[in-house]
């Protein structure tokens, strides 16, 4: 099976309201797939369904050939939440070592993950004293520990400066080249062009599942943001 993620007819309600309305897509292994759409369109809910912490009303979500959230996936799937989920009263290195120990790994793997996000110099600093961007990178380091097969990142570049964002995207592609599958959500359209595959969402539905080039061609615009807007209008007229 070549797909890391296979979602079929997924329906999710939250608070009695439909949030995901029959979504189907696949994420190829070893790719960087961008999940894009405006705030509130259902990206985080979809991500939660993929990592297996979301109750679904109907449909199926299979990850690396297993049902999402199954025990077999715990070592191979990592999830970085939108808000950094790390201990503010521990240092960067201690946070990474904590998450390494959870999966039976040692300090060497933790140190490697901290290096990967460029925080080796701040390894002994308390997370509570770090900048927002550094906290995000610490959270990412904790998700990277142990070389997962699927890395699900919810808006990992929010609040980061352009240089850091560039560095992180380079890291993502390097990992994908090593065989890791990345599903990265963002509401920043200029990050769409950095992805191998795009899932464009709006109001709980999937507008497009294609490469950036295919989306540009389909919408007749070289600018991905404009292409996205045209797709929305087209869908609106069709509805």
């Amino acid at each position, binding site marked *: 099976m070549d797909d890391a993620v296979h979602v079929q007819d997924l329906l999710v309600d939250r608070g009695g309201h439909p949030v995901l309305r029959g979504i189907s897509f696949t994420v190829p292994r070893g790719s960087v797939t961008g999940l894009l759409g405006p705030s509130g369109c259902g990206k985080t809910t979809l991500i*939660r369904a993929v*990592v*297996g*912490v979301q*109750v679904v009303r109907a449909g199926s979500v299979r990850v690396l050939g297993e049902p999402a959230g199954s*025990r077999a996936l*715990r*070592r191979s*799937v*990592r*999830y*970085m*939440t939108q*808000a*950094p*989920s*790390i*201990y*503010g*009263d*521990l*240092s960067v290195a*201690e946070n990474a*070592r*904590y*998450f390494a*120990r*959870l*999966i*039976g790994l040692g300090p060497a793997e933790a140190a490697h993950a901290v290096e990967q996000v460029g925080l080796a110099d701040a390894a002994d600093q308390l997370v509570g004293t770090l900048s927002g961007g550094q906290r995000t990178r610490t959270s990412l380091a*904790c*998700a990277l520990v142990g070389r997962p097969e699927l890395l699900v990142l919810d808006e990992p570049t929010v609040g980061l400066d352009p240089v850091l964002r560039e560095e992180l995207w380079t890291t993502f592609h390097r990992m994908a080249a090593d065989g890791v599958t990345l599903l990265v959500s963002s509401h920043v359209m200029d990050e769409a062009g950095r992805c191998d595959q795009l899932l464009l969402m709006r109001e709980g539905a999937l507008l497009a599942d294609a490469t950036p080039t295919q989306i540009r061609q389909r919408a007749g615009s070289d600018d991905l943001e404009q292409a996205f807007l045209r797709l929305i209008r087209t869908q609106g007229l069709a509805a």
Partner: protein
Amino acid sequence: MTALFASTRAELLRLTKWRVTWLLIAVWLTLNVTFVYVIPYLSYRTGGGGEITDGQSPESLLADMMPTTLAQSLTQGMPLFGGAIMLILGAITVGSGFGWGTWKTVFVQSASRSTAFLGTLVALAVVVVGTVVTTLAVDAGLSVLVAVTEAQPIDWPPATDLAAGVGSGILIFGMWTAAGVLLGTVARSPALAVGLGLVWAMALENLLAAAANLLGGLEPITDVLPGRTAGSLAGSFGGGGTPGVLTILGGGTAGLVLAAYLLAFVVISLTLIRRRDVV
């Protein structure tokens, strides 16, 4: 088992690297030394009979500081301020996981929610046992120091008494820590859990007991409240007159009730963690 061991190791790393853990243990040891040895010794040297030592005679004060009463020395501060400190530890250990948002990622990466949470409980149990054993060592050292200084014989209590004292200490601290864990789980916040716990431990139980005295007929309920039961267990080693130490229930009954509380707090917490949405 491997997954539980991994979770326990991770939580032990968190607890040992956490300054709060050491601060709470240091506060407990300081209070224990102050109220069990420093104040009684100063009172003894100044003739005894002071209000703070409940009017005890110098001979009685000295006898309570000797190695032979080690089980009593170990447990007498635990029901009140020791218990409150361990409640805080349990509440912030679990509550901070919600506060920092770490439970959701921990639960994704661990073998199961139960395993991750049990790892936390086992790590807390290690801290509880370590704290009780450290307290015993400190108290033993100080009791010998007092005995040597006052030219008294160094007689140790029977090993069974000492074992019962250590077991009771672990049970009292374990029950309060589990109460903190339950509050941290229910409140999903360290601050609210600590606040609620302290209101219960330091005020509400005593108010309920006072109300029961006034109304009559409610003592069977108030006598087995967590703090008063812990007080009864400590009281079974002596130390009557110390705040929080009671002689309402027998030691065996108090031990069983505390064990039931501990088990209930753990089971309820685990059930909530397994069933509730953490995000």
